[in-house]
């Protein structure tokens, strides 16, 4: 086999490898991208019913109810809010150690036809002062929190305050 022919072979193989990797990546992306939605996003535009997404916000104070399902599995119900809107969430499983009312949380799951979010995963990692970046972003968007002015306001005040009065917005 001449050098030219061999190089051709190698190039062909490389193209094949890269091509199939690209094709695989793109098709996998199509089906498996998990988008992040805040409660306001959901209120604005209902997501597809059978598609999993990540819902994030603050756990509304006083909304957490822990009970036991008929089959003995522990079930938790709570509301996730970004101030402007809230979504009810049900979760069957052990809540993470750092799950607290008023704290930032990210959940993975699907929205049911009744408007309740059925979470398959609840992430509340890190320390108590940690705010998931997506949640921080959603809070900023809904006009409830300017991180330059300190920590996020307590979740209890979120639904009673008007977005405009919650934080005097400067320069945005």
């Amino acid at each position, binding site marked *: 086999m001449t050098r030219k022919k061999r190089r051709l072979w190698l190039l062909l193989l490389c193209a094949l490898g*890269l091509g199939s990797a690209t094709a*695989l990546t793109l098709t*996998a992306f199509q089906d498996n991208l998990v988008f992040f939605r805040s409660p306001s996003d959901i209120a604005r535009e209902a997501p597809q019913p059978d598609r999993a997404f990540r819902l994030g916000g603050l756990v509304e104070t006083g909304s957490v109810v822990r009970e*036991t399902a008929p089959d003995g*599995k522990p079930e938790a119900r709570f509301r996730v809010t970004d101030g402007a809107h809230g979504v009810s969430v049900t979760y069957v499983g052990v809540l993470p150690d750092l799950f607290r009312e008023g704290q930032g949380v990210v959940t993975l799951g699907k929205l049911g036809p009744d408007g309740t979010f059925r979470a398959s995963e609840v992430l509340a990692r890190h320390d108590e002062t*940690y705010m998931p970046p997506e949640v921080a972003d959603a809070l900023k968007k809904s006009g409830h929190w300017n991180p330059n002015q300190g920590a996020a306001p307590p979740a209890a005040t979120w639904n009673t305050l008007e977005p405009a009065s919650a934080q005097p917005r400067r320069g945005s």
Partner: protein
Amino acid sequence: MIPEIGHFALALALALSLAQAAVGLIGAQRADARLMGAAAPLAAGVLVAVAAAFACLVWAYVANDTTVLNVVQNSHSAKPMLYKVSGAWGNHEGSMLLWVLILALCGGAVAAFGTNLPSALQARVLGVLALVALGFLGFILGTSNPFERIWPPPMDGQGLNPILQDPGLAFHPPLLYLGYVGFAVTYAFAVAALIEGRVDAAWGRWVRPWALAAWSFLTLGIALGSWWAYYELGWGGYWFWDPVENASLMPWLAGCALLHSAIVVEKREALKTWTVFLALLAFGMSLLGTFLVRSGVLNSVHAFANDPERGTVILILLALYIGGGFLLFAWRAQAMLPTGVFTPVSREGSLVLNNLLLCSIAAVVLVGTLYPMFADLVLKEKFSVGPPFFNTAILPLAVPLIGAMALGPVLPWKRARLFPALQRLWWAALAGLAALALCLMIEGQRVGPALGFGAAAWVILAAVADIADRIALFSRPRAAWARAKGLPRAAWGGATAHAGMGVMILGLAGMGLATDTLRLVKPGETVALAGLDYRLVSVVDAPGPNFSARRATVEVRDGGTLVTVLQPERRSFPQGRMTTTEAAIHTTWLSDLYVVLGEERDGGAVLRIHNNPLAPWIWLGGAIMALGGGLSLSDRRMRVSAPAAKPVKAGARA
């Protein structure tokens, strides 16, 4: 006083690195023997200085010197001694210092053991290593000085993140860094070769052991990290396709490709440009990993500091080293002419296939890791890609890779025919198909695990068949023992590493059949899972050295006989006010019984119980792979000097 000595030693190391880079690169360019000769002692000097700085930091931790800011932020006097020492590298500044220490160790090793290298090559390699050290020492001194003082000193430190207080994690970063930084040496060799415009078998013979050592350490480090995630995080899983995990997987994949293509350079003097490219890529992936983990772009237990300045500096270093390397590659790669010729179906061909598939997998992981970040920054769109993405994109690439990895070692060099090779592996293929069919029969429509069992049998038995063939176990069983002793260690190492991969696949396939359940139970109640009864006996307080805990006692019974008693815990640490779950695991080697204690309410406790078939074999497989790498490293050929390419004996191949 001692922290100042450490700080001074770091500055000294910076100056010495500058000198080492200058005399190494300029000396080699001018062919000045005196300048080149100075590079090795300077490398030793850098090693001594960095080691002194590291010792000073460890001293500050052991003595709990609260005038040092780093100690205050990451340590506490109530911590056990092991975690005081490991706390020295359980934070951003300390871990970067460890990174540089290992780099200095590698430089020292090249200086000490590289005396048989051509002196210009050795000087250039040392020069490039010093350039890398220079960047990172500057980074430490400029943005992350571990010896910064704080005044007035607080009464005590703030403690180390409790989930990092674990023996597995004490050794995970050093092992991982040994891997990352080992690829700095192959990078230095690649850059030196590009400057010289020459790659020969001797070069391959030097690069291969470094690639092997780096890869073996990285394998161990990743396996240890995965094992830690399994028993410490209490989620019952072992790999989450988290960006931080991917950051270590990418250099592993590139390094795996590198050490295979280095074989071809060494034996056949082919694929030279490609090997140089892979050497640049492997270190590039290591730096990218360091950037991802250390810069704070990812939020995880690894991101100790979210200081944008640091991220920018690491990104600049990454661009400099990798951009520089690839620029040099584009400019000089033409100079390296291949000499060995081979057909597509041959050992070389199979190694090319291995490289292509490994690099494709690395590319998929890279895209899956970086694209969400890119989209967040540029498209302002927030999304994530989880395990389903990686599983669907990687499985189709992994299947041919695993198929070929069993076949490759039995193909002859240069030119081969597929059929005789397949004939030698017929019983491995048969066993693989049988395992696949058996799994489908017993477990029903579970394609993933069935494929896994088939692949595991195929890979392990093919490795056995390969060795059996080489020592003529069946054709001349009497001479087999003598032949086995004569077989080069590299051959044993290769087969062991491949079998280790098979063992790992076996574990992964077993975990594909894992089951779990979740129940709120009162003491005395029983939960059944996978044929076993788990009875909660009690939940009591159990104080620890720097935490308080609730400990459950769970009896596991198979019918009437007691299998084991498990005691999962929930620990709360007063420092940092954190809670961690300690899973209780009992392994029968066929299966892990894994119990996690959840919250307590209504007079009962939530128990999450997993039955994880074959789980321990995942990490054992990783350890076997690293062992194979070690066996290969101990091969005599790796140790003898190889100034010129010698014709390779027929029996001596890896």
